[in-house]
């Protein structure tokens, strides 16, 4: 199934996971691919784990990515990245925001938030890129655009023209939010570029 590319986007309800997956799906569509995406969002605004998946290629059947076949995992939060890292292919890539959000509810006996979450994430996949997406979003003008920063970083690892991404952003966002998100996208793209050149972002 190598002719299909599988992207998983994980995070916490309210972080804009579904918007990010709409943008990725839209860009794949603009680039001429068959596209399917799935999402589980009944509780998306209540602070629970949320995941959405985008698949594209010549012909996509299942909207669900089989375990072990995720090519790129976009993690809007470190723990949610770690939770889904086992679903990656052996050659898989993680792109994560350097952000920790503690679960709102800690049932009795549940483990604490792993303090070494970023170290564990770094060894969980063949390639791991952690960028300060939330800080970059603030820099772009809206802290809530961290999802778009990560999408910008993702764009460096997918073969779509920048115009396909911009078109998808414009289609998925309210007009008032387009400018700030285009800036966030650009900052994410540059951060990924620096990582690829071995010059990680310093914040």
């Amino acid at each position, binding site marked *: 199934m190598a002719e299909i590319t599988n992207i998983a986007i994980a995070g916490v309800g309210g972080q804009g996971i579904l918007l990010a997956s*709409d943008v990725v799906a839209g860009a794949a569509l603009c680039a001429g691919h*068959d596209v*399917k995406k799935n999402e589980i969002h009944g509780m998306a605004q209540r*602070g629970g*784990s949320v995941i959405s998946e985008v698949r594209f290629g010549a012909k996509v059947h299942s909207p669900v990515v089989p375990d072990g076949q995720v090519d790129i995992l976009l993690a809007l939060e470190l723990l949610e990245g770690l939770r889904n890292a086992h679903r990656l292919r052996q050659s898989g890539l993680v792109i994560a925001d350097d952000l920790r959000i*503690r679960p709102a509810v800690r049932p009795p006996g549940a483990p604490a938030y792993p303090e070494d979450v970023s170290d564990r994430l770094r060894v969980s996949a063949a390639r791991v890129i952690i960028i300060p997406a939330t800080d970059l979003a603030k820099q772009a003008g809206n802290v809530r655009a961290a999802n778009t920063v990560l999408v910008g970083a993702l764009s460096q690892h997918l073969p779509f023209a920048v115009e396909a991404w911009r078109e998808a952003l414009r289609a998925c966002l309210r007009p008032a939010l387009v400018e700030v998100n285009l800036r966030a996208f650009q900052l994410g793209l540059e951060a990924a570029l620096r990582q690829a050149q071995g010059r990680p972002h310093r914040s």
Partner: protein
Amino acid sequence: MSETTTVGTRALLSGDEAIARGAFEAGVRVATAYPGTPSTEILETLAPCPEVYTEWAPNEKVALEVAIGASLAGARAICSMKHVGLNVASDPLMTASYTGVRGGLVIVSADDPGMFSSQNEQDNRHYARFAKIPMLEPADSQEAKDFVIRAFEISEQFDTPVMVRITTRIAHSKSLVTLGERVEHEPAGFQRDPAKTTMVPGNARRRHQLVEERTKALVAWAETCDLNRVERGDKRIGVITSGVPYQYAREARPRASALKLGLTNPLPAKLIKRFARSVERLYVVEELDPYLEGQIRAVGVKLARAPSSPRCGELSPADVARLLGARRASVAAPAADLPPRPPALCPGCGHRALLTVLKKLKVFVSGDIGCYTLGVQPPLQTMDTCICMGASIGVALGVEKATGRSDNMVAVIGDSTFIHSGITPLVDVVYNQGTTTVIILDNETTAMTGHQAHPATGKTASGEPTHTLRMDDLARAIGVRHVHVVDPYDVRESERLVRDALGRSEPTVIIARRRCVLLDRGRPRVPRQINPEECRGCGICLGHGCPAIVDRTPPGRKRKRVEIIAQLCAGCGVCALLCPSQAIKEAPANG
């Protein structure tokens, strides 16, 4: 109609959006629904269309009755609901099968295998057989649109309601759809024809015979219907499947022969037998109950030995690969020691404030369906029953009648749920001299499904102003003499009212009214903070489970160290009222 991304006439649509688009193109005039995951977006997508009358009905039964009326007046009508909604609407469904239709009538059932957002995972395919109506099962968004258009045609051709059955993975997955134009269908108007539309026994007996004749005609038609298709491939393996499991089977066994069923009631027995003869090993791939398998075995078709299909939960691509003996990618084990992240009531949620009072009073809580059901989780743990929409009140009355006491249990129900099916059990409480305490958690919206309007919001599905149902007046009209409205943020007054109600030998209705915080995001807020000098470290503030209040106690230390995260704090002030040391204060501006 809104689309996510459109290229020419192709759009990336969810199954729900595609169903709405299909209904729109089919010239639907009336669309009705009650919100329920994963079906809600069908009506939400149609609501802005001026060509279509859309309504949020008080419940699914009413929604279907309105759609039946529209159909009998000659208009095309669609009624959508989640799987358990069809239980509520099953009464009109069973007899609408007898009356048949004038304008096409399509009923969408959105099932939830895996219970992502439901109290059970019943397989609603049984309803189509039970009601003796045709059922269509799309396998992606394009089919969802196309099948809805076909469903209207079949409905009118065979004089029957038609069910379109989807699951969460169809409803909430997006795939490409080619868009078409709307074709208008002018309603002919209502005509008097009691033999068809007035189901007294004499008429219904004749209509039942027509239903049986209709079923025979549908069975014959199913054999050649193009909604079912044979995909010729490797003769050694054949798969009979429908819906999203078809996609998993195609991916697991791309070269296998497949009989892909789009019409799953009635089944084409001859086609199935022919397909079975054309392959060496035959498998059935389906989710939840052995609905296809049982009927296929019943016509004498032998299936290959296969690992048993999981009857519980959602079918996964890996399950299907295993059933079909396909090679699977090696999969790493998930990290085992990670903290779970269940959804939680939002900071500032009025439900939490009220549930905190119930926790303090140590009463049993007969619960219902809504955000407040999250109160079952620690640390609140104040939800002792949850059965179905509206059950809280009847269950509490039953406990009272069985035990002779009602001073240790309250019924808790949301505003939309109360209107859905809490009114009749409240009538029962008064009529049968119960003394139940009913707390309506009124957040002025249908929050759980994404903030839909309901009759007490004063807004219609399309956002027009309308009459606002007053639930306090309604409770008084039912005969409840003690009706109170309280702001749940005022935990002291709430506690007083609940205590009084529990001690009273008459029914009480307390409406705890606080608008959903997600609707008031722009409201100015004053976050709270803890003064460490006044804090005695008792941890009471942690006991109500607010996501903004975080335990920072170092390991081994008994006295709690607690922090309020200013960015998350909604400024409701409930924690400050709960604090026995008055250590929680308003944070200074720009602090």
